[in-house]
Structures are given as structure tokens and as C-alpha cells.
């Protein structure tokens, strides 16, 4: 699945499983992310997002399945794989005892940069992440958001081809979030591949060409945000009236035209699921025939939130019925 139509596969996972004692953190997870694209990983707390990131960055071994990143096997070639990746883990990992600048210089030196190159690279990144003013201060004195940005900068020091970002914007203020989004876009523009986990669906919606929804370690759905919205959500039309009396008339009129209106008296509006644009024409015609004055008509695409919630409730139901089966 490659809606962006981009380059060669950079992250390939097949049947990844991970067990911690009796806990199954991941079960049969497949993943394909192509060069130059952003792939989003969504899932509830404990769904297995971080575990998957840790496996793909060779921090922990899978109990089942195989995966390669930039062509290198996560189990057999961890050193070569690490040359290709940058990782921003879920929890900031900076050296508290060093200044912001020295943190970045340290990483650059460990990656093989000379002293001067390391300093230049650090300054470049401090600039990009808006940390120039704080650069000389010990990281211990940084605010949570500043630490997060420093952490992000640290993962990009080596210009990695594949970047893993585990909830990179959690705890950032709105301006800093926008900054991170821009950085992700720039990374991709420069040819990098990004795997991004997030609790914010709008973030995934804006940034990623494709996404995977995990639940209890399994893939619940995968595809482009558009595909998932069409698969699960429905478009709706919302019609508002000036008076509640009009609203009361509109209900039966719309039902009579074969639609399924839901009235909201507080907002004097009615919400109607629409399948095709013909439904929209039907709404307008029926209300017009009834002599009703509409003050507002909106057609809304489903949000990824709706997609996510409906996937989750479907998963909960099927888990429930499986349990019921088991009882019989």
C-alpha cells in the first residue's frame, strides 16, 4: 500500500510479534513504508506503538516475524541499521548535565563528526528548533517542551534516512507543534522517511500519507487517511434553521424523503448522513418544497477521530462476541 506512490520500501515488517511474559504486546503486525513518506501509527495506550518502534530501531528483538529498515535486518544487522536511523523515543532522552549545544555536539562526535563539523551541525539544529537562546544552558534547566525539541534535534544530528518519532508533539505548545510539523515536512522533502506515532489524530491526518491503527497489538486497519475515512465514516450534512418550529417540521419531511435525520434542538439543526451528492440535492429540494428557510447548510467529511472511535468500538464488540462464543 503506497498512496504517495513514492520510492523503494524503507521499512518492511512481516508478522511481527512480541511477548513480555504473559503479555502479548504485538501480534502479526505487517508494515510497509516507502521512501519519502510519513507513516502514522495510531492506537490506544498500551496498543503496542512504542514496542513496534523499539523493535524497528533494534532496541529489542521481536519474538516472531522479520523486519528490515533501510534494507537492514533488525535482528541480524543492528549496527548498520543504526547508522541509518534517528529515534526520538516517547520519553525525552537528553543529557541533563550538558548544555543544549553540548548534547548535540556529543551526538555528532559519536557519529564521526570532527570538532568543527559537530559545532556547525549543532548550531544549525539549534536554529531550526528555536533553541538558540537556551543553547548554552544545562538541559536540566529546560522546560518539558524545550527538552522535547532538543531530543528531536538530537535524533536528526546524523541526517538519518529513516526517522522514528514516538509521540513527538506530546507536551508541546501549539506553536512548537506547528514547528515540529514543519520539520517533519522538511525531512520528507529532503527525502527522509518518517514513522510517527501520535495520540492526536489531526496530526496524523495532516502529516501522513498512510497510517496503521493498532489495537491490543494487532492491526485494526491500515491505509491512507482518506481510505479509512471512506471505509468507516460517513459524510454528513448539517442543516440549521432560525426557529425550532421549522426544525420540528423538517424532521418528518426529511424522513419522508427516505433520509435518516437526527434533530438537535439546542442548536436548531438537523444532521443527515449522506451517501452521494444526490442525497444533498434531495435535502435541499424537500426542505424547499416544504417552504422552510435554511439559515445554514454544511457538508462535513468524517474526521479521523470518528474513524478511530468507530474502529475501536467495533473491535470492542467483536471481542465481546468472541467471548460470548467462548462461553457457549
Amino acid at each position, binding site marked *: 500500500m503506497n498512496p504517495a506512490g513514492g520510492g523503494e520500501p524503507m521499512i518492511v515488517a512481516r508478522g511481527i510479534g512480541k511477548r513480555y511474559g504473559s503479555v502479548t504486546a504485538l501480534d502479526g503486525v505487517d508494515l510497509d513504508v516507502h521512501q519519502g513518506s510519513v507513516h502514522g501509527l495510531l492506537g490506544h495506550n498500551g496498543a503496542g506503538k512504542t514496542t513496534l518502534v523499539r523493535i524497528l530501531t533494534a532496541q529489542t528483538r521481536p519474538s516472531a516475524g522479520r523486519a528490515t529498515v533501510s534494507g537492514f535486518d533488525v535482528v541480524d544487522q543492528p549496527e548498520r541499521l543504526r547508522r541509518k536511523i534517528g529515534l526520538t523515543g516517547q520519553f525525552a532522552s537528553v543529557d541533563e548535565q550538558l548544555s543544549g549545544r553540548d548534547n548535540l555536539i556529543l551526538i555528532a562526535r559519536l557519529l564521526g563528526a570532527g570538532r568543527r563539523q559537530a559545532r556547525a551541525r549543532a548550531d544549525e539544529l539549534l536554529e531550526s528548533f528555536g533553541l538558540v537562546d537556551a543553547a548554552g544552558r544545562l538541559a536540566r534547566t529546560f522546560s518539558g517542551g524545550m527538552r522535547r525539541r532538543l531530543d528531536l534535534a538530537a535524533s536528526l544530528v546524523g*541526517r538519518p534516512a529513516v526517522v522514528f518519532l514516538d509521540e513527538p508533539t506530546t507536551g508541546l505548545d501549539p506553536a512548537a507543534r506547528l514547528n515540529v510539523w514543519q520539520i517533519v515536512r522538511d525531512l520528507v522533502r529532503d527525502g527522509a522517511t518518517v514513522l510517527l506515532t501520535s495520540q492526536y489524530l489531526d496530526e496524523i491526518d495532516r502529516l501522513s500519507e498512510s497510517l496503521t491503527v493498532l489495537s491490543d497489538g494487532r492491526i485494526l486497519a491500515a491505509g491512507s487517511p482518506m481510505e479509512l475515512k471512506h471505509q468507516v465514516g460517513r459524510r454528513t450534512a448539517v442543516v440549521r434553521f432560525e426557529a425550532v418550529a421549522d426544525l420540528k417540521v423538517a424532521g418528518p419531511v426529511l424522513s419522508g424523503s427516505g433520509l435518516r435525520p437526527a434533530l438537535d434542538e439546542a442548536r436548531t439543526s438537523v444532521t443527515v448522513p449522506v451517501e452521494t451528492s444526490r442525497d444533498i440535492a434531495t435535502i435541499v429540494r424537500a426542505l424547499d418544497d416544504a417552504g422552510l428557510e435554511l439559515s445554514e447548510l454544511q457538508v462535513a467529511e468524517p474526521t479521523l477521530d470518528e474513524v478511530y472511535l468507530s474502529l475501536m468500538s467495533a473491535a470492542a464488540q467483536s471481542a465481546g462476541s468472541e467471548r460470548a462464543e467462548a462461553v457457549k
Partner: protein
Amino acid sequence: MTIAGGTIGGGPRAADAGTWEGSGVATQIWVLALRSLRALVLDPRILVSSLLAPFLMLLVFSQIFAGIANTPQFPAGVGYTDFLVPAIMVNTAMQSAMQTGIGLTQETQNGIIARLRSLPIWPGSILVGRSIAELIRSLLRLVVLLASALLIFGFRPAGGAGGVLAGIGLAALLGWGLGWIFIALTCWLREVELIQNVSGILLFPLMFASNAFVPVEALPRWLQVVAVINPMTHGIDAVRDLTHRGDAGGSAAVAVATALAVAVVAGFTAVKGLERDS
């Protein structure tokens, strides 16, 4: 905020910006040792307290145990300060050893070790770098300890300057070797409080069930048995011989060999622990 063209990115187009080929193990160790050293020495609170501790120990023990110098078991012609200083030296080095483990656990918890582990470097560099930084700090503490012993406590080692320097070197080496046991413990246990407790529990009997504060002959009989097999006793003996006589003969060689052997075995175990899947 926009970013000037192509400065942060990766992938093919970044190639012209120059990618690095990775660093050698020596560079890794050097860079990481400097990093740890900077934290240990730049923070004035940590520096002062670490320099003060051996001084206080010398002050307290020289007062408590001074009377022992008059008992028949005590070697004739040796002042208690002369007897005590080598033991404090070894103890100071041992505390540095413990500190290596504790510092490492704290780093594991604030995540920097995870960051370093995600880099294409030999994981052992992280540990070796830290142990070298701690060794340097340990030498610093020993120098301060001896300076105050000479200037304030009237320490007059018969072994002369050469003997004292050799003593410092041996004590530091012993601490460095033992430090690897604590590093290995840290890599396998990974919990600050546990490490602190285990370290404390280990160090206490090693220190007191030895000839550190009184000669072995002055200990109760069952403790004498423990003291004789306690490696600390032999380490302290070697440092004493160096400072008192300027020459320790075979005991120093045995101490050096033991410290190195411990470092190798524990070091190997530690790297295995660090690489262990979690």
C-alpha cells in the same frame, strides 16, 4: 517557523551535506569520558562533596581510633595517622567505584543511555568512558586527601614521595577494578535504590571486616578469619607497604593483577548486561 533549505533533512538529498562515517572506539571512549567528567567536575556541589568526604572520614576515624595505637597488637613505631591514611585511600577509591554504578543507573533512568544505545557505537564505550571519568575523579580525591593528611594531620609516610605516589596509583587502580563490579550490577539490575543498597551492603563489611582501622590481630577471632580472606585487607596491606616502605614487593603485583582480572570479567559481564534485551 521555516527552515532554511535542506539543513535538517536526511535521505539521498542530504548526502551532499556530508554524512559521517562513524567514530572509532577510541574516539567514542574519549568523547564519552569527557562528557561524564564534565558533569562530575563542573557541578560544584558534586565536586566539593566528593572532595570533602575522604577528608571528613580521615578526621572522624583518626579521633575515634587513635587510642588503638597504644595497644600491644599495633605495629611499633607507626603513628595511627600513618596507619589510617592508606585505608582511607583505599576506601575513597572504593566509594568512587560505587559511585560509578550509581551514576550509571541515574543516567539509565533519565534516558540518555537509551539515546546512546540507539547510536551506531560500541555499547562498551559508554561504560569504559564512565569508568575512566570516575577514575580521574578518584585520583583527584586521593590527591586532595593526601594533601590534607600531610598538611593538617601530620601524615609522615616513611615511603617518601615515590611510595605515596605509587600508593595513590594502586588505590585508584583497585577502585577502578572493583568499580566494574558495580557497573556490571547496574547493567543487570537497573534500579537506583537497589544498586545503592546492594553497594552499601557490599562495601560496609568489606571495609570493617578488614585491617582498615585496626590490625587484623586486634580483631575478634571470627572476624580475623573473614579479614584474612577479604581482598580489601590485601589491597590495604599493599598500599600501606608502599606508603610506609616505598616498596610492596609481591603484594602490589597480586593486587594489580586481581584488579585487572576483576575489571576484565566484570566488564565483559557488564557489556552483556547492557546489550541484554529488555
